[in-house]
């Protein structure tokens, strides 16, 4: 690990100027991803600016029905928040299915969103990786790629985004509030993360020095009946093989509105717009569920070790929809 400087920020403006003025500076929240990467030698910041004391540690219900989650709210606290558990169970479930209790106690909302994509070769400085060293080649493409992407990947990178929370936020149409040297902006969470394309080294659309200050959830009443299902190799503390976040509005057996996002399949949380299109206005039947899954997965391109993700996603999506529509109907 390379030696580095450390400073604790007392307000957003000074944090932003500390980082934006220094290309080697990075924000640090819970550190559960960045510190690992520093130990592995794949992140070598010259300066860390600690933002955990900034006033972004609360969850507020706004008058217009939206909910604002501060960027430094810890994952375990967010999962326990009554407004989240009641109005957005998909988010509480996603949070609780992530990592371990110890990690969730440290990890922040902003930091969880900004986790880098996960790939064994990216994490190993002794193997080629386009994300780590642009142009060096992708070791996963022809290597061990069981955990890798089947949607939206490129020849340059087939890594997947590891966050569970972000999949739920993508399904909920959350917005990310960002402050930077040039002022504030709002980025829909579905547009925060990038597909790898020709620049796999860029995981998000954020510019250097921009700071996530909050995430806002829309009112979305039917999200009170929502679900996160994570399929993984062991029952706890494992990354998703595939995951499904879904919320369904059902009126007399017909799906009138629906939100679906998929995890473990792509370089970003994958909003399943094709599946939603098939489901919206359709009867809640097994045939509809399967057709919706097939529509979304038509674009899937599998690798040596991850062919299973297509049928696993199809089955899991159908299972979640079955459960949600059964709940709605009962």
């Amino acid at each position, binding site marked *: 690990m390379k030696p580095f400087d450390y400073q604790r920020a007392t307000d957003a403006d000074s944090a932003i100027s500390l980082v934006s003025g220094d290309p080697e500076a990075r924000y640090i929240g819970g550190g559960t991803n960045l510190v690992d990467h520093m130990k592995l030698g794949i992140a070598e910041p010259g300066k860390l600016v600690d933002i955990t004391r900034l006033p972004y540690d609360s969850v507020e219900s706004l008058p217009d029905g939206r909910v604002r989650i501060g960027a430094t709210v810890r994952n375990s606290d967010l999962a326990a928040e009554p407004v989240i558990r009641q109005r957005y169970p998909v988010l509480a479930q996603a949070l609780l299915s992530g990592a371990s209790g110890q990690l969730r106690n440290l990890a922040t909302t902003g930091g969880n969103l900004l986790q880098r994509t996960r790939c064994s070769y990216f994490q190993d400085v002794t193997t080629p990786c386009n994300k780590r060293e642009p142009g060096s080649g992708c070791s996963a493409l022809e290597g061990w790629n069981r955990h890798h992407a089947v949607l939206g990947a490129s020849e340059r990178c087939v890594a997947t985004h590891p966050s569970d929370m972000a999949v739920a936020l993508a399904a909920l149409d959350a917005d990310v509030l960002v402050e930077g040297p040039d002022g504030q902006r709002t980025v829909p969470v579905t547009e925060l993360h990038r597909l790898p394309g020709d620049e796999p080294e860029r995981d998000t659309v954020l510019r250097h020095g921009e700071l996530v200050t909050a995430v806002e959830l829309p009112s979305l009443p039917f999200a009170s009946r929502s679900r996160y299902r994570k399929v993984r190799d062991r029952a*706890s503390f494992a990354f998703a093989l595939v995951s499904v976040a879904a919320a369904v509005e059902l009126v007399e057996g017909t799906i009138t509105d629906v939100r679906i996002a998929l995890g473990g399949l792509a370089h970003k949380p994958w909003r399943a717009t094709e599946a939603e299109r098939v489901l919206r206005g359709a009867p809640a039947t097994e045939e509809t569920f399967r057709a919706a899954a097939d529509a979304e997965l038509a674009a899937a391109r599998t690798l040596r070790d991850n062919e*299973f993700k297509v049928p696993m996603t199809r089955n899991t999506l159908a299972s979640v929809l079955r459960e949600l529509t059964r709940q709605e109907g009962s």
Partner: protein
Amino acid sequence: MTGATRATSPGPERIEGHAKVTGTARYAFEHPVADPLYLHPLRATIARGRVTSVDTTAAERVDGVRLVLTHHNAEALVPIGDPELAVLQSDEIAFRGQLIGAVVAETQESAAHAADLVEIRYERMAHDSDFRDDADIVYTPDADASPMLSPDLEEGDVDAALADAAFTVDATYTTPTEHHNPLEPHAVIAAWDDDGLTLHDSNQGSHLVRDLIAPLFGVDKERVSVISPHVGGAFGSKGMPHGHVALTALAARHTAGRPVKYALSRTQMFELVGYRPPTRQRVRLGADREGRLVATEHDSLEQTSRFKQYAEQSASASREMYTSPNRRVTNRLAALDVPAPTWMRAPGEAGGMYALESAMDELAVSAGIDPVELRLRNEPEVAPVSGLPFSSRNLPACLREGAERFGWHERDPRPGVRREGDWLVGTGVAASSFPSLFFPGSLATIRHESGGKYRVEIGAVDIGTGSRTALTQLAAEALEVPVEAVELWLGSTEQPHASLAGGSAGTASWGSTVVEAVRAFRTEHGHDPVSGAETTAGAGKNPDAGEYAMHSYGAQFAEVRVNADTGEVRVPRMLGVFAAGRIVNPRTARSQFLGGMTMGISMALHEHSVVDERFGHVVNHDLAGYHIAGNADVGSVEVDWIDEHDPHVNPVGVKGIGEIGIVGTAAAIGNAAHHATGVRVRDLPLTPEKFLR
């Protein structure tokens, strides 16, 4: 001999339990030493070739760096025949991750940072790390390649018997590379002074470490002390000293007496301290109409390293398990440019019995015979092959008792017909077996301190199994004094020589030694010894050795649920019933069986070191990528044993319990998964995609 009895008392609590849970038990790295330095290794990033240049300039400029050690400035070691210990003796690279140097600095951080700055250039040579059945790499190991290995066995006419058999199975099973991952990483503190070398080391045998490290440095054994009072798990990976011990001792030659500390990282533990080699095993079974085996064939292919041979005997599981008039058993090795494998909990039996006991289940299904009953019908009168009588063999009692307690008799044999919600439900059984070993050569000192208090010394290592407690009990029993009157000292070369903590032979070997030493003490000093009376003695040769076949046995039952949509596999319930001779301490014994079965669940469902043959390394080389069963993966695990008195195995009647718990677990789970789904998976681990439809 048979009939289940439950021990009425759980036995004394683990003597060092309080120290461990309060954090005061000192493990190797924690031992306080004055003014230490820290070592960070340099490791090869190619799988085969040589180091052509090393530039240490930038590393040496880092604050606090005291030494950069490579093959250029390392002293010559005495060749003792173990390539793993011959570190930095040449520029050759035989596997990826090989130790090729070290940085020693005032802090761990500066050592690690400086190590990143060392520039190493290589000449690459083509390597082969792809485990496969290919004549280019496969060979028959010499019979003396391992003490557990037997030559090929050929009895009767297997092919003819199979051709005439009413029911046959012909199946190939694979098990992957697995890594031990004990909780405590391998760690050592090395310090040289005028008296010689002192090592605080995490190992399974401090005397063995001394006996190898002393000649490596050309010093008398008396000048090397190895101190290992507490070891946080090992599973075989600390059985032999690995390169890191030699490297640290080598570095400490350059530090003017300052101790050098080195604890391996998890990732380094995937390269430097051994692993269970992958296997490919073909099993052919033939049975008559009643399910009696007429032919048994078991051919195993396992990986070894070109750098250092390790020969395992997985197929040998089929030599003595069941009666069969025709039998063929072969073990082959495939040598590759990979790190050296080593013993891992039940080496040979864990993988071999997975294959045999899965094949037995397939035979039961094809013959339409209950799998418990099938095993009972193939119970031998005397040991197959050798013809020796069994010292004791209570597998039938384990099967019957287990079946009764598990509720086996209500089982519907049809696969894939039970569903609860989204989950398909099934049950499975498998037998366990492990040889009862005894390692000779240990000595114990018995000393009467005063007032009926005794001090017992034996240089054994308690790797977390409860040896300290069991040996104290056996000493107290032999001395006919309360447990509190015995103070047991172990874990160091300061104490009399003791054999390795391995082969499930610790309590058998050291316990017999302690008991025989007490007898010698009584003979010499009587029952009213003076203060300071002392005797050192060991156990003699067992007159029954070679006269009896000696094994422990067990029966494992599993309930498995497989998600119909996702293929996820869960094990809500397991029961293991064992027959393992005398159980000295039910409390710590239960923990051993339970731990073995838990590791077996882990082997069945999760453990898999994925090798990328292009690079020759394990890709998932950390605990996020290499899964070990967590609490949520382990449901109800019940353990019990048959009360068994075996007068032949050794003077204390102990058969050994450290390994048998992992033997058979994976087969029981795989068999239950088949019963749940109708899908027969023959490749471990049982990950979800293998059950997806």
